[in-house]
């Protein structure tokens, strides 16, 4: 139980309660949702074991589901994103590779790299989430609009959060 682990647990609850207490009420034009809790999963250290990643994704998604009255939905999307996260990280390795214990945050390789890393993952998460929620493709364009608008909203919130609370840990 190192200091880093305790910090991770604390930030888990901060992201969770910020999501269910505040962001649950923030919906723009009935289309753009903000699921900032995904940021916690995206910012887990680079070298985390994929099994642990998926486990964390499941726990986080399931806890959010409890409050959102949608058991399994967020957990499904989170596990999916956590499974592809490491493959994605591997394919966009910045020059010189990752340091030990590096966090895939904006401090690692700048805002450009971070956007390239975070945005597709957030988009995939939202697409899975909204289409599973809609139960199919019967309202394809509206659901896609929801996913795209929410992706921009969540990414913007994530970038602002990165500027406000920069991760100085290495």
């Amino acid at each position, binding site marked *: 139980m190192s200091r880093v682990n305790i910090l991770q647990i604390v930030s888990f609850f901060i992201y969770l309660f910020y999501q269910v207490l505040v962001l*649950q009420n923030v919906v723009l034009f*009935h289309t753009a949702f903000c699921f900032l809790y995904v940021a916690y999963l995206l910012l887990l250290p680079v070298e985390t074991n994929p099994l642990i990643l998926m486990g964390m994704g499941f726990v986080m998604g399931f806890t959010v589901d409890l409050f959102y009255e*949608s058991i*399994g939905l967020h957990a*499904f999307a989170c*596990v*999916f994103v956590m*499974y592809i996260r490491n493959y994605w990280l591997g394919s966009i390795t910045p020059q010189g590779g990752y340091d030990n214990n590096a966090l895939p945050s904006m401090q690692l390789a700048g805002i450009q790299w971070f956007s390239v890393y975070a945005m597709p993952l957030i988009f995939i998460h939202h697409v899975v989430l909204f289409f599973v929620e809609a139960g199919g493709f019967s309202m394809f364009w509206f659901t896609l609009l929801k996913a795209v608008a929410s992706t921009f909203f969540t990414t913007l919130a994530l970038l602002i959060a990165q500027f406000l609370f920069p991760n100085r840990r290495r």
Partner: protein
Amino acid sequence: MARLFLFLYANRAFFTFLLLEVFCAWMIVENNRYQGAKFFNSSNRFIAETNNVSQGVREYFQLHEINKALAEENAMLRNQLQKISPSLQPVDSIVTNDSTEVNRFVYISAKVMNNSVGRFTNFITLNKGIDEGVEPDMAVISSSGVVGKVKTVSNHYCVVTSLLNVDVMTSAVLKRTGHYGTIQWDGLNPYTANLKYIPRHVKPVVGDTVVTSGYNAVFPQGIMIGVISEVKLRDEELFNDLKVKLAQDFRKLSYVTIVKSTLRHEQDSIEQSVNQIIRK
């Protein structure tokens, strides 16, 4: 066998992924089934209390409108009372004293703990549960109209399937013409729902009132649902294409009434026995 284990171990990430996803999918399906998942929902005490914190803040900003709605309802009830009291029955006429008829519906007032309108399947958490006599399948209404139907109940809380839920169908009637149809939300706009199965020969107009039909014994008869806001009749369709502007603004829900129908079990059981006879 050893090869198999080696194979499983080598691909453990993928198989864990598969296992978790299947488990999640199972939970989603199970929860979508009517009255699934008894424990893991916001009728759980801790979750309801946490949701109530944010609802408390939201409610503070709505105080003005809540007060207005309550004052209007008070005025309406007082008007009704005045209409009834002078027209008391003459002493010698037969007064209906059938207690089952008089107490046909029991009303329980409840406060909204959590609510959403943005998803395809929306639920509302209320602060009344088994201890106050709430049971699954009871109707939930507000002063302005239909709200939903109770889905699950815990000791002190209950979860209501909102009318804004693409899986919910409510039997409704066009008040002016008396034709029966079904109200179903389309998932797009929290202010309107669709009224289906009104046949071609009926000519509804914008502004017609839509109320509950009382056919399914959940909702009392004649509860306001909304007014028709759009009428379309395509050439090839069998039914009218109607949009209904809902009377209740679901974003501003704060106090609601749970309706307990004391005769519901009787109606259900007699209808069931009839169905069984038909099937034989």
